[in-house]
């Protein structure tokens, strides 16, 4: 397809019916350039309405102890903010090491976080301790789907018992009620009830991933976090699982539940095209920072951050592309510093500056994540201008952008 098709589309077609007019209010709060706003939950909460986020992450920072290196700690996530509304699917993309998995794990408390707010229904779950935390976990508001179902499911438990485990641990309902809930969960993910009596090793990969989704939705969570749920599957099964996730967020669990109760989701995936098929918004992570956050179809068809543009251009495509080629968005080889911070750029430079062909001196300071248009935030000093520096001829583009630099290596 070509870009003209995409641009001709009305902008709001990418926004799900559940989140009408997310608009300025939602995104204005999403700004994280002001640290006071970022860390104070009271200031972040607007008037209650149907589109109030289910999950609101503000200024989340995660660091791990480094075994070596100049500083004792490695910061894996820095000042990350994102919102998930009921019935919304937020995709998270980025390269290996960008912090996608750490973000997912930190939200559910599997990785310790240093600072920030993780607000679920008005409670900052980062501050919960001991009993309250356990209560929250067992309450089943957030559930996690792992990448590799073979490792996530206990090989010695039948599928039925694995799915029931969340209920039995929380001691919820009688045995019969639990059985009914398991049967219902299996039905919702489209698994044959007979699968309940089999072991994870005896079913196919696609069925296994569906079993692990059934396990996650059995106690009707509000939010599902899926870490690469389809990476281990082939094309057809991959689409089947994504379609299933799409159906789950469209159909409320109970007959009497309102819009507000619809399942929100975070899906981490490196398959950009499949993600574009079901997600509403996308958050692009690079080296632990959010560089772009906006409606997925628009972001993918006309990215506003050079890194997003590089990701999109690099994704192999069967059709002819009209966008820039990856070479146009890469820095000429002889100009690449091997590691950021080591040469040239100071430590607080834009995280992408060391690879960005458009970087200038201004990029020595981290750009704030600011709304470019309502509902679409970008962290780039050159957001309005870099695209005009692109020319159709890669060599020419490199020449205009990197004046005075010898680029005959390419």
């Amino acid at each position, binding site marked *: *397809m070509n870009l003209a098709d*995409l641009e001709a*589309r009305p902008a709001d*077609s*990418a926004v799900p019916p559940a989140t009408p007019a997310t608009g300025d209010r939602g995104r204005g709060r999403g700004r994280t350039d002001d640290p006071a706003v970022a860390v104070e939950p009271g200031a972040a909460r607007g008037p209650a309405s149907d589109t109030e986020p289910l999950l609101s992450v503000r200024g989340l920072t995660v660091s791990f102890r480094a075994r070596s290196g100049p500083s004792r700690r490695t910061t894996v996530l820095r000042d990350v903010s994102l919102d998930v509304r009921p019935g919304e699917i937020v995709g998270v993309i980025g*390269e*290996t090491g960008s912090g996608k998995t750490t973000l997912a794990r930190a939200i559910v408390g599997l990785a310790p976080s240093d600072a920030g707010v993780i607000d679920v229904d008005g409670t900052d779950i980062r501050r919960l301790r001991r009993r309250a935390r356990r209560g929250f976990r067992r309450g089943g508001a957030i559930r996690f789907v792992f990448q590799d179902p073979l490792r996530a499911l206990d090989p010695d438990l039948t599928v039925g018992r694995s799915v029931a485990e969340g209920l039995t641990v929380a001691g919820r309902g009688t045995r019969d009620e639990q059985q009914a809930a398991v049967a219902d969960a299996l039905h919702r993910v489209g698994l044959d009830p007979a699968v309940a009596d089999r072991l994870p090793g005896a079913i*196919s990969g696609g069925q296994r991933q569906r079993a692990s989704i059934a396990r996650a939705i059995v106690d009707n969570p509000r939010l599902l976090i899926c870490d690469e749920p389809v990476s281990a599957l*082939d*094309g*057809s099964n*991959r*689409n*089947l699982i*994504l*379609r299933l996730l*799409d159906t789950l967020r469209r159909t409320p669990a109970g007959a009497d539940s309102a819009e507000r109760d619809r399942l929100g989701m975070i899906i981490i995936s*490196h*398959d*950009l*095209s*499949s993600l*574009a*098929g*079901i997600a509403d918004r996308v958050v692009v992570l690079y080296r632990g920072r959010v560089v772009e956050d906006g409606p*997925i*179809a628009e972001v*993918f*068809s006309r990215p506003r951050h050079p890194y997003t543009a*590089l*990701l*999109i*251009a*690099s*994704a*192999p*495509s*069967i*059709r002819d*592309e009209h966008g820039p080629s*990856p*070479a146009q968005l890469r820095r000429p*080889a002889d100009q*690449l510093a*091997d590691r950021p911070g080591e040469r040239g750029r100071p430590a607080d430079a834009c995280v992408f500056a060391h690879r960005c062909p458009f970087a200038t001196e201004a990029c020595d300071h981290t750009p704030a994540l600011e709304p470019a248009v309502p509902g679409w935030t970008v962290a780039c000093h050159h957001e309005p201008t870099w695209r005009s520096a692109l020319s159709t001829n890669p060599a020419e583009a490199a020449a205009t952008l990197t004046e005075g630099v010898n680029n005959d290596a390419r």
Partner: protein
Amino acid sequence: MSDDLLRVDDLHITVGGGPAGRRNRQRRGGRFRRGGRSSATAAGSGGLRAVHGVSFTLRRGEAVGFVGESGSGKTLTCRAALGVLAPGCDVSGGQIDFDGTSLVGLPRRQWDGLRGTRIGAVFQDPGSYLNPSHTVGRQLAEQFRIKVGHGRREARAAAVALLATLGLHQPELVYHQYPHELSGGMLQRVVLAIAVAGEPDLLVADEATTALDVTVQAEVLEALDRLRAELGLAVLAVSHDLAVIAQLCDRILVFYAGEVVETGPTADVLANPRHPYTAALLRVASVGDWRRRELEVIDGSAPPVGARITGCRFADRCTFATDACRTAPVDLRAVPDGGPGADRAVRCIRLGEIDPAARAPERAGVPA
């Protein structure tokens, strides 16, 4: 000397025969000795037929790609061409001819003269093909010394130059690093360098970019393109990702359940698929489509390895299947209107009657 570099003719591969099958039988026999189950396992010494009559030719300097779901036989076929079939897998019929040498049943000693100098290979996980206790430079220079016969200094210079050709930014630095110090994309380029150090005629790339990030994948694919241009390398690429094959290969072979169901020039096949399976594969593939849409699924699942099917193996999942499809084996037939020299063939008896791509109105029409 002919223009054909690799010719595979009516190749059949069985799995679960040989040593692995025997080992399994022994283990199971031990475990279930009292139940008397040992005789009931495995399908005799023959094993299960996993690849049925695959034929193709690869010309010098040409890039041919295999696509298909897991278990379709694409990897087995390419491993047979490398002589690295897993224990228990056997070539049970057919011929593999590499530039005049028959590779089926070739003695190990003769393989050593081919691999590394005439045929190079790259696999999915570069980390596991390098020795963690030697620098990558040493492992690369070793190839130049053993396979090409360079001296120490010469080998080193050649290694650094090759690393630079492959787009590594600081080849001198990389030369002295250990595998654990390099990222996946850099490692894959080092493995690629080792594979092409002996200037082989053929490079086999089995899911070589599958484990990499898209940005790195694009760089490795560009490096492969550069090598093809510089060395006149023929490439045999295997991937489940249609888009990767589309970018890399001149011709494509679509595998399904151990058979080739469609073959032809990549651009033609992808623009105008003639087999329903190819069309379905295209619909589910990641195609750089950024719209919200109904994601397509191929209903049903592929038949298990070794399943006995009389007619078309795709019939059970095909929306165009008729009774005639299930009665007799279907041959790979040349496409009559494939255009001049297009060399297209399809394994479908309804070729010409149906338009497999037509079942996807969503793709061209309004977004779902």
